């Protein structure tokens, strides 16, 4: 009557379950507000008359606001909750005690997190890029950097949700303290922050200079994808080894 669940099916099942658990009205409304606020700020900046270079102003704004707050925070909220909430409320057992591998559960949770994070970040990013009148290059750069950022942050925060209780607080600490303060002081520290790579994607495509955004486009895209893959492998191992309530 029952049997081992193949990995592709397990990914689908985990994706569906986690997606349903992640979608709450309060969560979506709060994050829509964050996106709307960042877009509104960009619209206000775009409407001001004292800009010498719209592209440079737009890149500066989007780098320091959207890629500092919007992208990491939205990914943080969904990805830490993806398996972290289930771990903490005791429902993880309904995925864990099943005849399926562990890694598809992690991949399903990560995909669910990305599914929700992408529209909530990319739409405000596009609106903001258009609003500051930065041209097609800025739109392309922000979309690519946004996608890469969401992919990497989501994987890291899915892992964090499995590793720590109150993972959202630890994730905020990473975003605010490591990425926001420590990584801003040197290029080596910036290489250990996702923001260093999203910033490099912006500078590579738009040719606008940004501090600590001196990596090539290829490095800016490939390294975060590798980081995401490594985080997912670690999360799978963690799920295999952890105690489940």
């Amino acid at each position, binding site marked *: 009557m029952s049997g081992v669940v193949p990995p592709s099916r397990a990914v689908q099942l985990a994706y569906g*379950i986690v997606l349903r658990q992640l979608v709450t009205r309060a969560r979506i409304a709060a994050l829509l507000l964050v996106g709307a606020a960042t877009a509104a700020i960009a619209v206000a900046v775009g409407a001001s008359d004292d800009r010498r270079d719209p592209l440079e102003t737009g890149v500066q704004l989007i780098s320091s606001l959207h890629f500092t707050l919007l992208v990491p925070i939205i990914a943080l909220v969904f990805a830490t909750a993806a398996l972290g909430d289930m771990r903490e409320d005791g429902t993880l057992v*309904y995925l864990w*005690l099943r005849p399926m*591998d562990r890694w598809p559960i992690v991949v399903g949770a990560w995909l669910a997190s990305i599914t929700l994070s992408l529209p909530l970040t990319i739409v405000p990013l596009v609106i903001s890029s258009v609003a500051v009148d930065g041209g097609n290059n800025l739109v392309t750069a922000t979309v690519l950097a946004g996608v890469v950022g969401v992919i990497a942050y989501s994987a890291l925060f899915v892992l964090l949700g499995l590793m720590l209780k109150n993972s959202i607080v630890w994730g905020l600490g990473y975003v605010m303290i490591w990425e926001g303060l420590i990584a801003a002081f040197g290029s080596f520290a910036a290489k250990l922050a996702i923001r260093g790579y999203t910033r490099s994607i912006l500078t590579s495509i738009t040719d606008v200079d940004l501090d600590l955004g001196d990596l090539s486009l290829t490095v800016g895209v490939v390294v975060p994808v590798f980081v995401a893959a490594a985080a997912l492998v670690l999360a799978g191992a963690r799920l295999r080894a952890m*105690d489940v309530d």
Partner: protein
Amino acid sequence: MADWAPPVARPPTPPAPDPNAIVVVANVTKSFGDVVAVSDVSFTVGPGVTALLGPNGAGKSTLFRVMCGLTAPTRGTVKVLGVDARIDRAVRGRIGLAPQQDALFDRLSAHRFVEVAARTHGVSDADAAARQVLDLVELDADDPKPVGAFSKGMRQRVKLAAALVHDPDLLILDEPLTGLDPVQRNRMIRLFHQLGDDGKCLLVSSHVLDEVARLGSRVLVIAQGRLAATGDYRDLRTLMDDRPHRIRVATDGARVLAAALVERDLVDGVSVSFDSLMVDTNDVDRFGRNIAAVAKQCGVRLREVEPTDDDLESVFRYLVERR
């Protein structure tokens, strides 16, 4: 009393090989830091209903989690259907667990929740399987209400249905009767027996002695993380009745009555206070039959005769201490 066996063997030895054993627990210890939740427990379980009896905090749920592979034992081994459920992917499809915690996917309907359980177990027709087990636990498969709005008893039955939906060989049910009304409780117990008669292995935990009396004849008693006793429920009952009892007798002639009880060899020990006496006896039935007559012969009035150690905790304490 033949197979009633307080597990006193030291040093502990793994259970003897049993060809019918579905669960083999061998010298399992589980610690969380300095806290030992389960200590050196060994037993085997075969088809049929086996009750795991113990007070809250005794280690029942931890033992179940170890069996299911949800946590690794600190020492010892657990085999379910011959393998370790923590490692073997396939065997997890042959275990049905209804955990003690109340957590469910609260926004799903009962049917959707059980259907998801079926799908994650690789059941081919998940919808039909979900409907069938929901019918078995007497829940409406078409009820659109989310399980978050269900009563405790209904949530228990949803958990039970989800544990049953893939037709497992081993069912581990952690306090499954909690929250059920008496009628539902009777029905569930009948269902457990029916499943046991069909050859399934059911391990059902409870901290309520009367429940265990109706769950099955085979009982594992766990207290303070140790297996205090294993065997037939009727033998456990006899053991409980035969153990030393302490009874408080309130009377207006405590000294006279105490002397008479000792003289007639109705007590093993007695201590006297101003208006009562505390009696120790190994034969509580004989004491009960004679106390009124002795008091009458002595010309004293009995105000109260009250066992002081008849609660389940005392029974568990006794079973642990006698090891």
